[in-house]
C-alpha cells in the first residue's frame, strides 16, 4: 500500500506492507532510528512519537493508519540552528537520561504531559509518564527534568511546526 506521511516536516510517499508498524516504518523506511522499540506489548513507551498533535506509541499504530498525517520524532525537536527543545535541554541539565534507550520516547511523552498540564506536580508527572518505562534513572531525574522544562512556558508542551523544521 502507498502511504504519504510527513515526518519532522518532510513529506514522503512510500510503498509499505499493510501490517507494517509505524515504529518500523520510521526506523527502517525513513531511517530515523532515535525511535526505539523496547517491547512487543505496547508497555514500555520507548517508541513514543507525536502524531497530529497526540503522543502515541508508534508500535501500536500501523503506518497505513498514519497516511496523510504529521509525525514528529525526537530528531524533529531541535531547532534548525541546533537549539534544543526545552524538554531536551531539561533532560540534559537534570541528568534525566543514562543509557538513552527510553529517552526519545520519554522526551516525546514528557512533551505530551506538559501539553496537557503546563505545571504538573511530582505526582502528576509520574502518572503522566506511567506508560513509559526506564530502567536506569529510577525516574527521579526524569520527573525533575519535566518540572524544569515546565518553567520554559508553553513551548515545552509543543512540537515544532513542520515549516520551522523544514527551514
Amino acid at each position, binding site marked *: 500500500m502507498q502511504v504519504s506521511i510527513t515526518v519532522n516536516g518532510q513529506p514522503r510517499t512510500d510503498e509499505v506492507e499493510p501490517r507494517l508498524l509505524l515504529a518500523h516504518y520510521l526506523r527502517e523506511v525513513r531511517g530515523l532510528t532515535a525511535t526505539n522499540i523496547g517491547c512487543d506489548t505496547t508497555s514500555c513507551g520507548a517508541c513514543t512519537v507525536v502524531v497530529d498533535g497526540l503522543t502515541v506509541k508508534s508500535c501500536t499504530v500501523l503506518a497505513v493508519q498514519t497516511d496523510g498525517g504529521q509525525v514528529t520524532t525526537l530528531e524533529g525537536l531541535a531547532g534548525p540552528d541546533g537549539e534544543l527543545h526545552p524538554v531536551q535541554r531539561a533532560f540534559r541539565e537534570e541528568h534525566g537520561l543514562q543509557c538513552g534507550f527510553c*529517552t526519545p520516547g520519554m522526551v516525546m511523552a514528557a512533551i505530551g504531559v506538559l501539553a496537557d498540564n503546563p505545571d504538573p506536580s511530582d505526582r502528576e508527572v*509520574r502518572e503522566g509518564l506511567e506508560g513509559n518505562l526506564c530502567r536506569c534513572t529510577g525516574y527521579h531525574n526524569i520527573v525533575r527534568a519535566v518540572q524544569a522544562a515546565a518553567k520554559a512556558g508553553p513551548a515545552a508542551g509543543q512540537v515544532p511546526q513542520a515549516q520551522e523544521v523544514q527551514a
Partner: protein
Amino acid sequence: MSILGTRVVRTEDPLFLTRGATYTDDLTDERLTGALHATFVRSTVAHGRLLSVDASAALEAPGVVAVVTAQDVADLAPIPPPFPFINPAMTRPWLASDRVRFVGDPVAVVLTEERYQGEDAAEMVAVDIDPLPAVVGTAAAASDEVLLFPEAGTNVMASFGDPAPADFFDGCEVVVTQAMVNQRVAPVPLEGRAAAAAWSEDGRVTVWCTNQGAQQARGQFGDWLEMDPDLIHLITPDVGGGFGAKIGADPEYAFVAWLAKHVGRPVRWAESRSENLIGMLHGRGQDQVVTVGGRRDGTIEAYSIVFDQDCGSYPRIGAVLPTLTMLMAPGVYGFPKVHAQARALATTTTSIGAYRGAGRPEATAALERAVDLFAAEIGTDPADVRRKNLLPAFSEPHTTPTGATYDTGDYTVALDKALEAAGYAELRAEQARRRERGDVRQLGIGMSVYVEITGADNGAGTGEAASLEVHPDGTATVLTGTSPHGQGHATAWAMIASDQLGIPIEKISVVHGDTDRVPQGGGTMGSRSLQQGGAAVHQAAGELVDLARQRAAEKLEVAPEDLVVDLGLAGLAVRGTPGTGITFAELAADEQLLVQTRFTAAAPTFPFGAHVVVVEVDVESGKAEVTRLIAVDDAGTILNPLLAEGQRHGGYAQGVAQALLEEVLYDEDGNPTTSTLADYPFVSATELPSFELVEMATPTPMNALGAKGIGEAGTIGATPAVQNAVIDAVAHLGVRHIDMPTTPMRVFRAVQQARGGS
C-alpha cells in the same frame, strides 16, 4: 579550581537527545549491507526429548534463505561450563539436538531477507518434543528425581562450604531462624540483546553486540568458536543498559558470527521483548535459611546462612554468585561467628546471571532481615540492635570471618546520618499514633546498613588499561577498557584527563568497546569502572605530563623540574612565569604525544551505607506504597555528583522493585508466565517516590582518586530496607516475615494469618 567533584552535565547527551544513540540494531555500517535477519526458533516446552525438527515448510516461506538446525552445527563443540568447579557434564549445545532444558532453549535459526519474514517462517518450523517432567525451584532440583543432565548424575552444579558445627549456636539466649526467598527477577535493560556480524575476505569477523565488556566477550567467542581472538573484531556500540545481564558473550552472539560464515552473508539479530524475558539471563534466585543467635541485651553472637542458588538450565555466572553471597555474609557486623554454605542447582528454567549487585544484595537482604527478626524477637528497636553490633569505625583494613578484607568504613555514622535525615524518632511516634488509632493505613519504617565489594577481580585481573593521546589540534583521545552503558564514562574520563592537562572536556573524546582499538579491558561490571578504569586514566594523564615535561625541557632548554603544568595554557610553563610555556598540542605537533598504561589496584574496595525507608500499608488491601527513601551511600571520593546520584537513583528503583513487585514466575510445568512486559511487573514512575540522598564520603587508599564503586549500592541497600519497612508496618498485627515481592496479596494473607484467619 579542580573540575573533579563538580556537577558536570554529560558531553554525550546532545547527540543522545537530538539524533538518538546508535545501538546495535540502529547500525547502518556498510559492512552490514545485505545482511540477513536471524530469528531463533525456541523450545516451547520446559523439558523434553527433541524428536524432530522439520524445516521443510519454513524453507518454502517468502524470503527464507536458510534454516539451521543442530545437525548443521554438529562440528561445533558444545559450550563448556564457565568455571572449573562446575560439573563438567553440564554443557550447552548451540542448538538443542536431543533434549530441551527450558522454554526458550534454541532449537533452530531461520535466516531471512527481512525481519517480518523471519517471524512468519519461524512459526512454520515444526518442532516435535516428547515432554519430560519439569524441574522448577531448588527443592525439585535438589531431590535429583528428574535430572537435566543424566550423564552428570545430579542437578548440583557446584557446592560451596561445609555444614555448621553442631554447637554453633550453643550458649545463645535467643536463636531465631527463618526461611526466605530472594526471588528470581528479570534485569530487563530497555535494549534487549542484539548482534550483527560480517566476515571480511582476510578471514576476520567483525561482530557488533550489546555488551558490557567487548574484550571479555571476544575471549569467549574465541574459545567457543575455536578461533584466534585476533581474528575477531568485537565492537559494542551504544548499549541500552546492562545491569549485569550483558556481562560476557551470549551464545546467540557468537552464533550470529557463525551463521554469517555459514551462509556467506552478514547476519543481524535483535530479540523481541518476549524473547528477552525468556532468553536473557535472569538474576537473584536464592532460597535461603538464616539463623541468628545472641543475647537478650541485643548482642548477636552467631549468624548462619545456608542457601540454594537456582541457576536455571545451563551454568552461567549464576553458578558462581553463591561465593559472593558467602563472602559478604557478615556484612557490616562484628558477629564473632559467621557460617555460610550453598549449592548451585540446575532447573528447567532460564539461566541465572549477574543482576545489579550480583550476590551482594542477596547477602544483605538475608542479613538485614535476620537482624530485624532478632530485634523483633527480643523486643528491641532494630536501630539499637544494629548499633550494638556494627563494626566500629576503622581506617586500617579489617578482615571478616569469611575472609573479606574491608578497606575503610564507618557504619555507625552512616546509620545515624540516615536516621537523622529521616526524622526517625518522629516517624516512630507517628507509627505509634496510627497503631493506637487502628488506622487502615499503617506506617512502616525499615532500615538496612550494608557494605559491598566493588572492583573485585572479574576474571580479567584487577587491573585496567588506559591510553591517552594529545593531538596537534589540541584535542585529546582517551582509550579505556571499561565500557559504559549509561554511566557517563565519556564525561567522567574526560574530566579526569582535563583536570591534569587543562584541555577542555569538550575536546577530549573517549573511545571504548572496540577490541581493535582497545585490545585489553575488563569492561563495566561490579562497579569497577571509576576505581579501576578512571584510576587508569588518572595514571595515564600523570604519565603524559611526565613525558611532555621531558620533551618540553629539551625544547625549551630548561630543567624538567622547572616546568609545571599550566592548566590555562593546556601545557607546561616555566615555574614562576605562567603563560610563557609550550602547549601539549605544540609538543604533539613535533612528535606523537601518547601514553599507554595499566593501573592495577592492590585490592577491591568496600563501599557502604545505610538506607531508611518509609512505607504506608493499607492493612485491608495489603497494598504498600513507598513514601520516602532516605539513603547514605558512601563510595569514597565522588568524581561527578550528578552521575553518582543518577547511579544511586537507578539502583533504588530496582531495589524497591524487587522488594515490592517484580518477580519472574513459572508454572509447575516450567512455562514462564511473566514473559512479556504486560505480565512482568516492571516498576514504573508511579510506584516510586523522589529519593532523599544524604552525602558521606570516606576515601579509599586503593587508588589515587579515593574512589569506590557506586553502581550497585542502590539495589543492595534499598531492597531489604523496603522489605523490612513493609513487614514493620504490619508487625504489630503479629506478622513476623513476608517474602519478597511484598505484593498486596502476600501482605493481605500475612495479615489474615496473623489475625487467625485463613
